[in-house]
C-alpha cells in the first residue's frame, strides 16, 4: 500500500467525520456521559477515601489494632473510571457503529464510489484508508473525552499518581479497542448492505446479539444449571444437626471445597463465554484495570473462599494496582486477544468483501 494514497483518502475521511454533525453530537454526548459518570465516581472515591482514612485512624489507635484486610487498602482513583466503563459499554458501541455504518454505502448512495475507484488506487488502499480516517476520528473523540475526564478529576481535587495515570491510559486503550470492535462490525455491514439504513440495522442487530443476547443466553440460570448442575447444598440444609464437632467440621470443609470448585468452574465458564461478546469482555477488562484487587480475587478463586482466607489473599497482594494487573496478565491474555481478534476478523471480512465486489 502506498502512503500517499492512504494519507489522501484517510485525511479526507477524517475531515469529513470531524466536520459532520453526527460526530460532534456523539462526541458531545460521550463527553457529557463520561463527565457525569466521573463526577459520580469521584464523589464515591472521596467517600471511600474518607472511610479509609477513618479506618486508618482507628487501626493506629490501641483499640483498632485488629483491623486489616480489604478495608485497609487505599481506594484508587480508577474506581471512578469503573463507572465510566459501564456507560462506555453502551455509548461507545453506538459511537463505533455511527462512525462506520455508512463508510462504503454512503459512497454508493452518492454515486461517488465509481469515480473514486476509477482513480489509480487499489481497493484495499481505499478500505484501509477509510478505516484509518474513521479510527483517527474515534481516537480524537475519545482523546477529547479522556482529557476532559482528567480535567474533571483534577478540578474535583483528585490527583492520580503515576501508577494510576498508567492504568488510566490502559483503560483508555481498552475502551478505544472496544469502540473499534463495533466500528469494524459497522464497516463490514457497510460493505455487505445495499444502503446505509440496512447497514445501520445490521450493525445494531449484531450489537444486540453480542452485547445483550450472548451474555443473557450463556449466563442464564437454566443454562448454567444444565451444564454444571445445581450448586452444592450446605450441610445445614439437609436438616442434620446431630454430628459431633469433628464430623461437622469435615462436612463443612467438604462443602466448602465443592462450593469453591463449583464457583471456579462457573467463573471459568462466564469468563470464556464473555470472549464472544466484546461488551462483556470490555467490561471484564475495564474492571480488571479499574479494580485489580477484586479481579485478582475472582480470577484466583480467593473471592469464593471464606472471609479469613479472602482477607488473607487481599493482604498478600502488592500495594500497586499496576503490579497486581501485571500478575494477572497470564489469565487476561485471552481477553486481550479477543479484544484484538474481534475487530480484526470483521475488518478482514469487510476487506475481502469490498476487494472482491463488482461495482455496477
Amino acid at each position, binding site marked *: 500500500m502506498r502512503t500517499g494514497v492512504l494519507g489522501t*483518502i484517510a485525511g*479526507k475521511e477524517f475531515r469529513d467525520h470531524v466536520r459532520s454533525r453526527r460526530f460532534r453530537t456523539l462526541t458531545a454526548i460521550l463527553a457529557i456521559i463520561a463527565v457525569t459518570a466521573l463526577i459520580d465516581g469521584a464523589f464515591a472515591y472521596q467517600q471511600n477515601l474518607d472511610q479509609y482514612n477513618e479506618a486508618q485512624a482507628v487501626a493506629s489507635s490501641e483499640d483498632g489494632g485488629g483491623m486489616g484486610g480489604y478495608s485497609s487498602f487505599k481506594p484508587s482513583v480508577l474506581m471512578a473510571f469503573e463507572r465510566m466503563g459501564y456507560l462506555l459499554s453502551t455509548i461507545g458501541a453506538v459511537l463505533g457503529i455511527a462512525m462506520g455504518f455508512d463508510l462504503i454505502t454512503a459512497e454508493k448512495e*452518492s454515486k461517488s464510489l465509481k*469515480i473514486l*475507484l476509477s*482513480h489509480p488506487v487499489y481497493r484495499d488502499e481505499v478500505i484501509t484508508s477509510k478505516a484509518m480516517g474513521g479510527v483517527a476520528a474515534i481516537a480524537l473523540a475519545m482523546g477529547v473525552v479522556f482529557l476532559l475526564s482528567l480535567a474533571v478529576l483534577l478540578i474535583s481535587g483528585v490527583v492520580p499518581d503515576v501508577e494510576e495515570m498508567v492504568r488510566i491510559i490502559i483503560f483508555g486503550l481498552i475502551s478505544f479497542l472496544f469502540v473499534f470492535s463495533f466500528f469494524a462490525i459497522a464497516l463490514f455491514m457497510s460493505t455487505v448492505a445495499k444502503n446505509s439504513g440496512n447497514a445501520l440495522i445490521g450493525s445494531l442487530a449484531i450489537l444486540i446479539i453480542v452485547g445483550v443476547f450472548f451474555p443473557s443466553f450463556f449466563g442464564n440460570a437454566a443454562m448454567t444449571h444444565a451444564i454444571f448442575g445445581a450448586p452444592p447444598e450446605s450441610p445445614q440444609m439437609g436438616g442434620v444437626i446431630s454430628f459431633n464437632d469433628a464430623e461437622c467440621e469435615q462436612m463443612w470443609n467438604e462443602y466448602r471445597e465443592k462450593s469453591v470448585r463449583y464457583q471456579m468452574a462457573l467463573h471459568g465458564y462466564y469468563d470464556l463465554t464473555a470472549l464472544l461478546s466484546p461488551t462483556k469482555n470490555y467490561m471484564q477488562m475495564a474492571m480488571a484495570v479499574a479494580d485489580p484487587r477484586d479481579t485478582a480475587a475472582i480470577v484466583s478463586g480467593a473471592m469464593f473462599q471464606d472471609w479469613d482466607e479472602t482477607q488473607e489473599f487481599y493482604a498478600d497482594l502488592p500495594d500497586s494496582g499496576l503490579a497486581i494487573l501485571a500478575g494477572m496478565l497470564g489469565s487476561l491474555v485471552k481477553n486481550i486477544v479477543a479484544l484484538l481478534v474481534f475487530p480484526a476478523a470483521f475488518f478482514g471480512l469487510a476487506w475481502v468483501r469490498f476487494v472482491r465486489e*463488482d*461495482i*455496477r
Partner: protein
Amino acid sequence: MIRCEHLTKVYNGVPAVDDLCLDIPEGEIFGLLGPNGAGKSTTILMVIGLIEPTSGACYIDGTEVATNPIEVKRKIGYMPEDVGFYATLTAEENLEYSAKLYGMDGATRRKRIPDLLSLVGLEGVTKVVGGYSKGMRQRLGIAKALINEPKAVILDEPTANLDPQGVADYRRIIRETAENGTTVLVSSHILSEVSKVCTSAGILSHGKLVASGRWEDLARAGGSGHVIIRVETKAPMPEFSHPSLISAEYADGHRAARLVAETDICDAVAEAAGPAGIRRLERDEPDLEDVFLSYYHEEATS
C-alpha cells in the same frame, strides 16, 4: 488505443456482454450505441477495470486492464452515467482530491484545476456540490475525467442531464480533446447526440457488437434494402397490406402514414390510398434512427 478481445461478462448465467471485439484507434471519438440493457455500461466498467470480465481481455494503450489496473487508470479519464461527487465539498475541493489521488503536485494542481473549471463553465462557483443541479454535476464530471490529461477518455451517457448550452460545451470539449490526440469512448442510447460528435461507432444489442465502423459505412450497410414511404390523404385511408411491407405507422385518424418496406411499393400504396384522396406521397431516405433500429431488429430476429 482501446482494444477489447472476446470480452464476455456473464451474470447468473446470462451474458451481459458476449464475445465483444473492439479496436478504437488513437484520436478517434467512438460512440458505443445501444438500447438500455444492451451491455454498454458493463463494457465500460470492464474497460476501466471496475468489474472483472468472465473471459476475454481489455487493453488500454497496449496495457491489459485486469493485470495492470493502476497503470491503466493513470491513462484513462472516466465519467460514469450517474456521476456523483462529495456533496459537502466544492467543485474545486472535489477536483483537488481527485488530482491528489493521481499524485499530481501542488503547482500542477493549482494550474490545472482552475483551467478545467473554466473549460466546463464552473469557474467562480463556490457552493458545495450538494447544491448542484444534475447538469452542473455532469459538467464537473467532464472536468474530473480530464484532470489527469488522459490518453483515453471514457464517458457513459455524458449528455443525459445537460441543457443545450451544456451539450454544446460538451461537444466542443470532446472535439478539442480528440484533436489533441486523446481517444474518446462515448456510450449513449441517444443516437442523434452520438452522431453529432463521434467519428465512428459500434452498435451493441443484447451484449453483442452487431456492427461497427465509420458513420457513412454504418448508414450504408444498415440502410440498404429499406424504403420509407410517407403518405397523407384527405379522408381516412385503409390499412395497407403488401408482402414487402415491414412496418406501418398511422396518425391523424389514418390520414397520415409512415411505411417501411423492403422494396419500393409506392405504386401499390398510390393505388390503395387513391380512393381516400392523396394529398402527399413521397419516398424518404432512411434517417439514422431507422438505420440503427434496423440493426437492433436484425439482431433480435436472428
